[in-house]
């Protein structure tokens, strides 16, 4: 009998097809990867973010001898003055919506009218925060002017604010990348852990071993199926975000592709956690605690919902140890700021290092039987 040589590729592909069908028919996979992130996007999209203190770019050439500066720089002003090495960087940050406004305080022009003048630059990218700061500033100025000041006859006058055109910054632009990251984490950890545990437990793997496919072929076949499913999920989340909630894709399709590429990397790394959990879990009911131990802290601390800057310092150290933090960070840079993959290579490198570490552990603890 003349049979062609056995093709591992064909066998691996057969597993991918079967597994993908199986995932699509599993309600929990669909709920975890799609429904949860979408629900969170809707809920948090409407709540919006209530920032406690506003970051404001502060022109270095400002006059800091006057009372206005002392009020703004004071601890309870609700304003956080940020200085930049160059004016260009300051303007760039304003355009991204990272700072609410730029303020510069001009020295008193004694010869003319003896008033402290203030220049304010706003940008539509900073949304409400700019307006909030403007009214705060107005309130401060009118209070100071009505009370009189220690410096005789000093008046503060605010020049007409200059509006810089930036791009619109919406809360969906912050929420969606975080949700995308979390969806990948959940799908990677829970999906992989449950699937491999149950394939092992129900002897599906053992039945596969009795066929000529190699073990690596089984893992790769399953992993490709999960990757395809998760990437389809990511695309759906981004597209729904774009068309239903106005999520901004700065460079359009390129940004979309960059986000998908980053999603794929994230999922592959997070699947490593799933392999570890499936290896360590003694029974099915011990999977959720293990998996939650990995996903929950990252869910809360990796900047999924809240900017890490809002956390106390000691907690920020924890945040900066988590892989999802870097994935979220890179995802936002790509999505908001239109960065390319190379621009976030630092974040990617850290995610990859996590991946290497976790797969080394997975190889140690993974069990076939």
């Amino acid at each position, binding site marked *: 009998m003349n049979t062609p040589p056995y093709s591992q590729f064909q*066998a691996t592909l057969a597993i991918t*097809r*079967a597994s993908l069908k199986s995932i699509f028919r599993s309600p929990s996979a669909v709920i975890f990867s799609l429904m949860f992130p979408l629900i969170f996007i809707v809920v948090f999209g409407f709540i919006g973010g209530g920032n406690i203190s506003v970051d404001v770019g502060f022109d270095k050439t400002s006059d800091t001898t006057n009372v206005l500066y002392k009020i703004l720089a004071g601890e309870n002003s609700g304003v956080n003055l940020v200085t930049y090495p160059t004016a260009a960087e300051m303007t760039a940050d304003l355009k991204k919506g990272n700072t609410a406004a730029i303020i510069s305080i001009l020295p008193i022009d004694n010869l003319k009218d003896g008033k402290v003048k203030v220049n304010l630059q706003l940008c539509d990218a900073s949304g409400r925060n700019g307006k909030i700061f403007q009214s705060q500033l107005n309130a401060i100025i009118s209070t100071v002017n009505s009370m009189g000041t220690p410096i005789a006859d000093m008046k503060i006058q605010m020049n007409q604010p200059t509006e810089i055109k930036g791009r619109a910054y919406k809360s969906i632009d912050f929420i969606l990348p975080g949700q995308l990251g979390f969806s990948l984490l959940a799908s990677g950890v829970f999906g992989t852990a449950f699937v491999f545990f149950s394939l092992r437990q*129900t*002897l*599906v793997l053992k*039945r596969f071993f*009795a066929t*000529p496919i190699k073990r690596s072929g089984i893992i790769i076949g399953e992993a490709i199926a999960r990757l395809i499913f998760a990437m389809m999920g990511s695309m759906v989340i981004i597209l729904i975000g774009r068309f239903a909630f106005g999520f901004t894709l700065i460079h359009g399709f390129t940004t979309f592709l960059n986000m998908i590429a980053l999603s794929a990397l994230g999922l592959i790394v997070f699947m490593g956690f799933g392999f570890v959990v499936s290896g360590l879990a003694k029974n099915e009911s011990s999977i959720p605690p293990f998996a939650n131990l990995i996903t929950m802290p990252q869910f809360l601390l990796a900047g999924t919902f809240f900017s890490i800057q809002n956390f106390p310092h000691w907690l920020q150290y924890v945040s900066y140890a988590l892989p999802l933090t870097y994935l979220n960070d890179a995802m936002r840079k790509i999505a908001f700021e239109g960065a390319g993959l190379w621009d976030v290579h630092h974040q990617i490198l850290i995610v990859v290092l996590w991946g290497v570490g976790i797969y080394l552990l997975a190889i140690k603890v993974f069990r076939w039987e």
Partner: protein
Amino acid sequence: MNPSKTIISVKELVKSYGTLPAVKGISFEVYEGEIFGLLGPNGAGKTTTLEIMETLRSKTSGEVLINGLNVDTHPQEIKKIIGVQLQAAGYYPGLTLLELMQLFSGLYNRKINKMEMLAAVGLQDKAKAKHKELSGGQKQRFSIATTLINNPKIIFLDEPTTGLDPQARRNLWDLIRQIRDNGTTVVITTHYMDEAENLCDRVGVIESGKIIAMDTPDKLIDNLIASGFERKKEVKKANLEDVFLSLTGKEWKDE
């Protein structure tokens, strides 16, 4: 059947788990085209022996040749020519039988007529049913269908009738005989003696990791009678199972 041609040869097979010996040096041969039964109580070492022959388990010592191929050196080649039915093997529960047949067709790199193969085990009506919707007997028949995809020289069946009702068992026996008649050698484990007596051409009895008897069922019975054994109770021409089957019918039922 050609009793002179050996297709499986097991010599001095030993398997220990840690210091615990499960199989203690057993030797036997299986001939091409026969149904060979490994009998013995639970825990006697039947499944271990079977899984070593199936290349699913390593052995401690001894030699096992499957169609002339050594399990140590040619496991991949052996997998291509054998079919394996595991005790309670699972499949993707949400997939239909046709989709699962497609999967195994890919795993074995074989093009098959899926419907025809399902029909061979009487599951053509269930082709679009999900695996989790099958009854116990249907699952076993499906499991056997997956062992036949690569047109194997030998199939291994591990307690295929455990947990089935009398009709389903008889149906499965007919199926197994049919597979043998098509030229496939069958190795089966069971702890039901009626099954061995009805089905097997030859049997080996394993007890505590050793083979304690090996011959045709008829010969073993004759030997026992020759030793002076007598049943305490006169045997009637029918038993309760015959009554049950004649009352409830013998056809394949959709259990």
